[in-house]
């Protein structure tokens, strides 16, 4: 009938090859299609190690770390680092707070809230390059509606992107306008997907709202926040469209972010080597940031889903 253990020769079963290969078969096409990008990447690395200005072909040579070395004492480089980082911190910080606030406002599933969520998404559908054009129109000191409106509250000489003191504010404002919806929609999705029980329990126990928010909502929302911040952070530090369309990095060097600097170096100054070196530094920053974030994200997600 039945025995506890049937002794026999142990046999080794293996997953058949097609089973073991399946995940590779599924994921490799995507990888293969993208992997080609490594060729131009490698070329760019090589460029960054050369003194290479297209208009001075006879001076082209390998200088290895030369381009990077000049960065150390180059105030333009450090200005770019500073501008890029402050742009990133301002935009992502404001967008996160604002996006979270709006998501909380629209958290409950009502007809109005759903419609409002889609409406708030509209700015995301306007290409940043076009959005910048739009804001340029609206901030024109003469006929721009925004200049007119701030004039009504006494700021008659507000110069938006054209004054060094308000240029950063202006581009950050545009970025916030365009990209807050992205964070908002992710966090809204997160809020609406949260399980109900902890909140119901907290309500029954009469736990104060602030405690619920900081100790329950926020930690449970963390994977969403991290994803939203990751995508925004890496896009913000690579900002190009808005700044280039608004001021091309000016006034002065006030808005000279990495990609604008690299673009100018490459396409206007033909300084291929220096441009590539700028971009390599940018790449390094994004690589470290994304690694950091993804590790944390995976850890948080594991925690949120419980063990195994």
């Amino acid at each position, binding site marked *: 009938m039945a025995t506890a253990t049937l002794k026999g020769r142990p046999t080794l079963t293996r997953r058949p090859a097609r089973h073991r290969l399946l995940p590779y078969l599924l994921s490799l096409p995507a990888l293969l299609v993208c992997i080609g990008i490594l060729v131009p990447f490698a070329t760019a690395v090589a460029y960054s190690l050369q003194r290479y200005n297209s208009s001075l072909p006879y001076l082209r040579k390998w200088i290895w770390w030369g381009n990077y070395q000049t960065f150390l004492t180059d105030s333009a480089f450090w200005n770019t680092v500073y501008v890029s980082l402050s742009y990133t911190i301002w935009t992502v910080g404001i967008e996160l707070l604002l996006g979270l606030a709006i998501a909380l406002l629209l958290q409950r599933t009502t007809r109005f809230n759903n419609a409002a969520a889609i409406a708030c998404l*509209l700015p995301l559908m306007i290409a940043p390059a076009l959005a910048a054009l739009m804001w340029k*129109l609206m901030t024109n000191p003469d006929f721009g509606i925004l200049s007119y409106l701030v004039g009504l509250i006494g700021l008659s000489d507000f110069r938006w992107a054209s004054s060094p003191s308000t240029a950063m504010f202006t581009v950050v404002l545009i970025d916030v306008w365009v990209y807050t919806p992205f964070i908002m929609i992710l966090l809204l999705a997160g809020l609406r997907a949260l399980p109900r029980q902890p909140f119901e329990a907290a309500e029954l126990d009469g736990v104060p709202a602030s405690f619920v928010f900081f100790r329950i909502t926020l930690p449970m929302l963390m994977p969403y926040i991290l994803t939203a911040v990751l995508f925004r952070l890496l896009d913000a530090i690579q900002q190009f469209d808005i700044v280039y369309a608004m001021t091309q990095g000016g006034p002065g060097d006030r808005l000279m972010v990495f990609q604008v600097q690299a673009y100018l170096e490459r396409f206007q100054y033909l300084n291929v080597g220096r441009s590539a070196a700028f971009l390599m530094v940018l790449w390094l920053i994004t690589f470290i940031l994304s690694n950091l974030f993804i590790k944390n994200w995976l850890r948080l997600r594991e925690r949120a889903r419980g063990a195994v």
Partner: protein
Amino acid sequence: MASKISGGAVLRAAARIIVLLFFLFPIFWVFLMSFQTNQQILRIPPSIFFTPTLENYTALFSGRLQTASGSLDIAFIKNLLNSIILSSCSVLIALILGVPAAYAFARFKFRLGENIAFTLLSFRFAPPLLVLVPLVAYFQMIGLSDTYIGLIWVYQLICLPLILWIVRGYFEDISPDIEHAYRVDGHSWAKTFFKIAIPLARPGIAAAALLSFIFAWNNFVFALILASADKQPVTVGALAFVTSAGIQYGIIAAAIVLSVTPTLLLALYAQRYLVEGLSLGAVKG
């Protein structure tokens, strides 16, 4: 007590109004501008009272614009078409490539799996200019320069990682037992993938597709450098309205309005999936 609650409600309602105003007013204003002539737009101070004109739209659709220095050819409708071709083909291909890969990362623990996933994601984060510059030369060499295929390929760098990330999260949220049950019922792996996995992940796929469509549509720098006038999308094409005969503000406004329309329609169509679909596998559903 009751008054306290209604006080909070009033505050929240006011906050909602302010939020909507902030996001929608600029669009509303541009929408108004698109029905004004350049002269009306350039009035000082600006005003919301004007006799609407359709001339901006007529110019965009007819492809001709009368300006101070003669008539101007406008390829805007062609640009719009290019945008549609580029974005939808890119998203489609990214879905074909990305959904199976996302499924693999969500369902299987395999050697190098996480590495491949991270590598794919990291493509999204490489500075576009870094690869773009040498890419122009390589495209030249292999004959991909100024082709839709070349552009769509580069657009994969925008679409594919986003789709992978979101769809993978969504797959992880679906209990694998549902697929197991289907397999046990006697269905093949492929049938299970198409009849169970994909239909169940539909909200995630729809949300990811919509977001990556938006990002592809909004892309500027790839098209700027890689596309000829023939293939360029609206983002680059709209620059053409800055002309020697002055900046055609009304036309720019109309172009913005038109360029938003396809994405907006898509978003309205996919709205019920949008919030539901972005669950990212973060919380056990």
